[in-house]
């Protein structure tokens, strides 16, 4: 459980750094390659997938889907915190429905 939770939180920070990196892009192609924010974002994603794979290998499959959902909630908070994005009713409703759908899919896979 701890592995998959850690993976989710690291993954949500990966998304934050990809967004920071995207905002730092310029017209020149080198702004894609020499972009430390993007590099951290990609690195965080790879690291989170390692945690997921280790977690699943240790039989954490049942908590995998709910914990992936935790990553979504973290990302909503970081969006508000770091990018001043408005948290509207339609965002909560949409994310809530997606979470319910992911849990149903997870139950259906057993």
């Amino acid at each position, binding site marked *: 459980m701890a592995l998959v939770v850690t993976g989710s939180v690291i993954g949500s920070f990966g998304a*934050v750094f990809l967004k920071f990196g995207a905002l730092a892009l310029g017209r020149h192609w080198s702004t894609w390659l020499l972009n430390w924010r993007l590099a951290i974002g990609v690195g965080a994603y790879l690291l989170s997938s390692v945690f997921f794979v280790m977690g699943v290998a240790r039989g954490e499959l049942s908590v995998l889907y709910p914990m992936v959902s935790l990553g979504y909630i973290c990302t909503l908070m970081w969006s508000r915190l770091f990018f001043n994005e408005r948290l509207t009713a339609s965002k909560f409703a949409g994310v809530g429905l997606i979470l319910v759908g992911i849990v149903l899919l997870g139950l*259906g896979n057993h």
Partner: protein
Amino acid sequence: MSTAIATPAPTVDVPERRRRALLIVVGCTLIGAVAQVLIKSGANHLSHPGFLGAILGMLTNPPLFFGYCLYGVFTALMVYALRDGELSILFPLIALQYVWVSILSVVIFHESMSPLKAAGVVVIVIGVAVLGRGGAKA
């Protein structure tokens, strides 16, 4: 390093750019689903399981190789979309990938679609539609 901050092109208005970001991410989820299916079929034919075998397989096993290449394309398109779109909308949209994978698993691997899975697919699609509508309006 990268100090240049991207300035919006004046020719395309903000709602249009946000809509485009949404469409790019929907395309991303299709690419991601195909990548996942390729990696799954490639991993089934891995001759040497384990960490080194997996690394070797990524380079020598065509489905694995193209699967991971597609993940590269996925990430680049995602970053491109994040320039204009809100993270709080685009990130949850990636869940659409589960929908495509569920459909591809039935079509390609002939896995069964249980009622629970079908319900999950429908609920995710509704959630994505609610998010997308809000995102295009905002």
